[in-house]
């Protein structure tokens, strides 16, 4: 697959292309090898430089990178024996949401996530990871199964948002999301969310009222898209980078504000360039969180979750 480069990766692109052109030669001289080594060092330095100075909007671009690993990649890399379960038993089986039974080391769990496609064809099929109400209702069904059969719930967040379309409105998008929230608020099993890419507003929130909420370093989570915010506040879509800044939507901002429980770091170059270490870290985080949460009795678990979400918000009190 041809690599796709982001706007701020032009220098990286140049180095990587030089490396592959040298490495692709039919005869590689010792001279070439030396050059490659130097270029690789340069590449490392450049990746570090670029990726340690990312603007919020650049992180949004990384979160949206078409080659960033998707929920299905995380499922395949981290779990074994995945059995996908389909359908909401009401209207449809939303391809923008994937869910099923999976095994994490020896732990049996229920996994649910938004699912984007890997290419245009897949993205059209999966509606670019934007669920319809039936996606949220499929999730609700799986959540209830998880509760019934005592399976911890793990969700992966990766959506630009719930789909704003005629059918989605006709079938109660707002209700579908609200009912997910209601169900998760006292689901009697441990629940963990991992934001792996885009955290698009209510469409992402529907899967993240959990005991623990982590974001990959370059994932974002926002009340509104930077573009949408820019149009409303500056009347210009091009002001999206400003909006991204103002909205405090990066993993670092959100951790600092106390809105998420932790960051899963990505190598310089991002999860789309180096997914393996990200899978590994995600797995560690899941295992250690589950370990903690499984020690709690059901009632304590729910109470703690409710307390966690009870304290969200900043205001002053008293006249």
């Amino acid at each position, binding site marked *: 697959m041809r690599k796709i480069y982001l706007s701020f990766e032009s220098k990286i692109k140049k180095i990587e292309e030089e490396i592959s052109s040298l490495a692709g030669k039919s005869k590689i001289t010792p001279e070439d090898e030396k050059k490659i080594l130097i270029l690789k060092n340069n590449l490392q330095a450049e990746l570090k430089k670029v990726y340690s100075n990312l603007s919020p909007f650049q992180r949004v671009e990384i979160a949206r990178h078409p080659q960033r690993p998707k929920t299905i990649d995380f499922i395949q890399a981290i779990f074994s024996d995945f059995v996908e379960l389909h359908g909401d038993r009401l209207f449809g089986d939303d391809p923008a949401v994937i869910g099923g039974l999976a095994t994490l080391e020896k732990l049996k769990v229920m996994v649910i996530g938004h699912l984007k496609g890997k290419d245009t064809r897949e993205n059209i099929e999966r509606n670019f990871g934007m669920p319809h109400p039936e996606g949220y209702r499929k999730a609700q069904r799986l959540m209830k199964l998880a509760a019934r059969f005592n399976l911890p719930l793990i969700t992966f967040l990766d959506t630009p948002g*719930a*789909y*704003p*379309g*005629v059918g*989605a*409105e*006709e*079938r*109660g*998008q*707002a*209700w579908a*999301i*609200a*009912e997910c*929230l*209601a169900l998760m*608020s*006292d689901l009697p099993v441990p629940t963990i969310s991992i934001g792996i890419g885009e955290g698009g*507003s*209510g469409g992402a*929130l*529907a899967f*993240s*009222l959990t005991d623990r909420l982590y974001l990959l370093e370059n994932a974002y*989570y*926002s*009340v*509104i898209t930077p573009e*949408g*915010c820019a149009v*409303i*506040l*500056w009347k210009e879509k091009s002001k999206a980078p*400003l*909006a991204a800044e*103002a*909205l*405090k*939507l990066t993993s670092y901002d*959100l951790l600092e*504000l106390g*809105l998420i429980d932790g960051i899963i770091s990505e190598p310089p170059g991002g999860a789309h360039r180096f997914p393996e270490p990200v899978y590994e870290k995600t797995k560690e985080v899941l295992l250690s969180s589950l370990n903690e949460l499984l020690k709690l009795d059901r009632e304590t678990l729910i109470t703690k*979750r*409710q307390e966690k*979400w*009870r304290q*969200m*918000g*900043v*205001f*002053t*009190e*008293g*006249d």
Partner: protein
Amino acid sequence: MKEEKKGFSVPDGLFIRCGVCKTILFRKEFEKNFKVCPHCGFHYRLSVKERIDLLLDNNSFQEKFTELRTADPLSFRCLKNYSELVEKSEQKTGLREAVVTGEGKLGGISLALAFFDFGFIGGSMGSVVGEKITRLFELAEASKKPILMVIASGGARMQEGMFSLFQMAKTVTALKKYQRRNLPYVALFTNPTTGGVTASFASLADIILAEPQALIGFAGPKVIEQTTGSRLPKGFQTAEFLMKHGFVDLVVPRSEQRDTLIKLFDYLIGG
């Protein structure tokens, strides 16, 4: 709503012109009719005070949680700073936030109450709105009171970023604890009821009433048109449309709202 703006285009005269049906109306008659056009039935926006007058028993309302004040947790900067926006909204509406919460009586029944004002930053939910709604659920749970909420909101408040989005989770968590007690919660959706408020505590009411023609939905119609690139069907996202699609129990004009609500609460607490 464009029509509404038009309806108020002659704001200080003895007469006004209904923006929808263009009829010239006596301002006094229009206001006595709770701002419903007697000709076409369009329901114009009401202030919180007018809502209280319309629905509750006289002088029964006692506001609660007035001590909560909006902070600016993101130090949000754009063309206009968030704190200035809040200040301006306070002046414009005479309110301190987009929702007024409290207790009051309706046909003698003690209720926990929330009234949204769309004029206050589009009735949007930030930390204070979320906290007030949450406290209202807690108060109602502790005192075993039924709840009535009159909704009007554009959604989560952008200027508090993820704090606003998480108010959806917070309010629903409080609601779920409340509903476990089998206490009734009725919502009245007014124009407009969209976004994060609809996708959280508002639509989880046991019974949902709506005002005629009120805009109700998750996404706003503009966003949908832009995303789908096609024109919206006629009547899309109106209260009547929502009822047809199964999400609203009854569309109730203002003249019948008080009676309908009294009947409903009578059923839900008397069973």
